[in-house]
């Protein structure tokens, strides 16, 4: 199977053993490609990962810590071929990641996202509610992760309704109007998880608004909700009870691998599309962990041609729950994201001088 066939095949249809082989071959090619085109990548792979040879399955592929895209300029194309630079929307004081895309990689990302989304949305463009203000897409020069994610999703909808104003307040009247017109047929709701909860759900929950024909797609992490003791199960249950909304799809993805989206199944677990996979590693030894053991998430994707980001060690913790479970309706690994690794707390710093009694 080549890349196009992986993309064309029904998503989530590959048994893990087949995926290991097919995706392993794709990733082997990409490793070679980036090794010869990106000097930094070659030096890192040659020293830290013994040259990245002997790749059979995704687990054999060298993995770059995702933080490297913040500190270094990593690309496998000449500067003249850079079509777009993606930035992570890093919080204040943090250096954002910079991801260099050429036209082909950008095209693959768009295509890939579309293959994944049509799996749950069908082929039609649905009327769409965006839990955002329209301000975010007006400034198209800033391709941060949030704007890029939103723009990527716009194409799956029509008659877009931006439900929030500039101050992130929900327009309840606007929402009622939208539902009057489109509420009787399938419609799409998209937004970032914490906005969907705090700015959308919490406002409409007491209002008896019917969203039972809706399909909610959301992403962006649970950190802010965990503080309010809302996890994925609670999120789904409360939506169902208050609005009748049952078709809810969380997804996991990152600006360093746009297009490789891990979409939630009906069981509330995340699944890798055909052209991507996750591997869980022991954070200390970096060894691959078996099913059921929590560890660092490594993400592999066959999409990145223009930058060496086809295999990345994230700073997220996750767990694979089962593999090729026939009951889930999807093949491959089913996993969930637990959260970020706790920040490093080093006692001193370079300013520091310690004093003690020697041995």
């Amino acid at each position: 199977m080549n890349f196009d066939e992986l993309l064309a095949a029904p998503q989530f249809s590959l048994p893990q053993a087949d995926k290991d082989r097919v995706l392993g071959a794709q990733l082997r090619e990409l490793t070679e490609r980036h090794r010869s085109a990106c000097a930094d990548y070659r030096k890192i792979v040659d020293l830290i990962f013994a040259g990245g040879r002997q790749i059979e399955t995704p687990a054999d592929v060298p993995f770059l810590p995702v933080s490297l895209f913040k500190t270094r300029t990593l690309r496998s194309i000449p500067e003249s071929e850079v079509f777009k630079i993606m930035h992570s929307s890093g919080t204040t004081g943090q250096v954002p990641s910079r991801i260099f895309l050429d036209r082909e990689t950008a095209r693959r990302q768009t295509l890939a996202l579309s293959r994944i989304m049509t799996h749950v949305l069908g082929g039609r463009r649905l009327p769409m509610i965006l839990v955002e203000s329209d301000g975010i897409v007006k400034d198209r020069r800033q391709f941060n992760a949030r704007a890029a994610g939103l723009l990527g999703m716009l194409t799956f909808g029509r008659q877009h309704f931006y439900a929030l104003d500039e101050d992130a307040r929900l327009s309840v009247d606007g929402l009622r109007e939208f539902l009057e017109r489109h509420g009787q047929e399938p419609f799409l709701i998209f937004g970032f998880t914490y906005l969907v909860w705090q700015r959308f759900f919490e406002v409409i929950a007491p209002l008896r608004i019917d969203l039972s024909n809706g399909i909610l797609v959301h992403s962006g992490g649970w950190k802010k909700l965990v503080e309010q003791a809302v996890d994925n199960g609670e999120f789904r249950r409360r939506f169902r009870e208050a609005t009748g909304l049952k078709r809810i799809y969380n997804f996991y993805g990152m600006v360093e691998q746009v297009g490789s989206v891990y979409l939630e199944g009906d069981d509330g677990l995340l699944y890798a599309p055909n052209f991507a996979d996750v591997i869980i590693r022991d954070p200390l030894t970096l060894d691959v962990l078996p099913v059921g053991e929590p560890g660092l998430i490594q993400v592999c994707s066959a999409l990145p041609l223009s930058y060496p980001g086809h295999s990345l060690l994230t700073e997220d913790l996750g767990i694979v729950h089962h593999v090729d479970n026939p009951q889930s309706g999807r093949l491959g690994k089913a996993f969930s994201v637990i959260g970020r690794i706790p920040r490093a707390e080093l006692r001193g710093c370079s300013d520091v001088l310690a004093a003690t009694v020697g041995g």
Partner: protein
Amino acid sequence: MKLNAVIPASGVMDVEEFARRHRGLHGERTPFAADLLEFFGRFSRAIFQSREASRYPELTALAYWMRPAELERLRAEFHAAVPADTVVMPRGTVFHIPPGNVDTIFVYSLVLAALMGNTNIIRLSDRPSPQTDILVDLLGRQIDAGGSFEGLVSVVRYGHDAQINAALTELCDCRVIWGGDNTVRTIRATPLPPHALELVFPDRYSLAAIDAGAYLALAEADRPAIAADFFNDAFWFDQMACSSPRLVVWCGGENDVAAASSLFWLGLEGELEHRAYMAQPAVSVRRLGFSCEVAADQALSAHVHGRYFTRLVVPSLDGFSREHCGGGLFFEAAVESLEHLVPFITRRDQTISYFGFARRQLENLAGMLMARGVERIVPIGQALKFGRFWDGHDMLMSFGRYIHIITPRARKR
């Protein structure tokens, strides 16, 4: 312009008011006055007896360093250091600016200055720290416990404020700035009174040197002790103390170095296992990220990522970068013999902790360093041990003023 006076506990007050009060104090004493020794001896006991303090090994170490017998020893050293034709008196007021993140430094700095009879102003940052709070509380109690220690030490807290720094600097005869190159640069922008002196402790780099042959000659039963000592030097402050080793240099032939190195790291791993050392996931990831950076930027001959630490072997020390991420990452290099280290040493280098060298070899090395760097050469296990000689200063005697007395020679009749 306000600061928070913690000792004496006057609360938030105008800096002008603080300065006015400070000028009115007559806290100076003669060096090593009996009541000073007694005061710090009591402080040491109070730390030993504090249940809270006992939770922090660095506080116990401080109390041990300040115990009465050690203060007596320091007094003897002081008398030995005073030349026959001089009398040593205090400089006056010492203004201490300790680092924001090593909680015990301010006490070490204070003790040496106070024993010389100076009055002291200590600026603490607003960063919360249980260790600092315990020390400030116990120090305040010693002052309240009686005796006339008013003015011996004032502890104030304020954020980064150049104007307050300037106002307090105006009061001092000696300023002590503990580190971070940036801190030193920032505070130095405030000029000292013309007569005043300054001691600065900027960022430093430290390494360990081991004679491969001597290490291999160790009986197997003696190797764990070296591992334990090295653990203390490197891991107590997550390798972020400036005297903690970040580079290990092996001295000897290729085969000896290979054999000694593999035994040494195996031993360290055993020590960490034995202590059930809690390695942090984020630190492991940071080590991997840093290793990738180094691999892209400089020549390396090997990389080994372990559960507790990472080794990066460099083929040569030429062009070696002293960048470091802390948290258990060791660069490793080999030289034929100790003197081959000399061209590598720069002013940034502070401590060489060693194993397997005779005093003669170490003095030979020191004698070749000229103005390059390295101001401490200590056995492995003592890298973090504080002393009066630090960063090339004799801190104790720097806090004193020499009065040179010349009497006419007896004339021949």
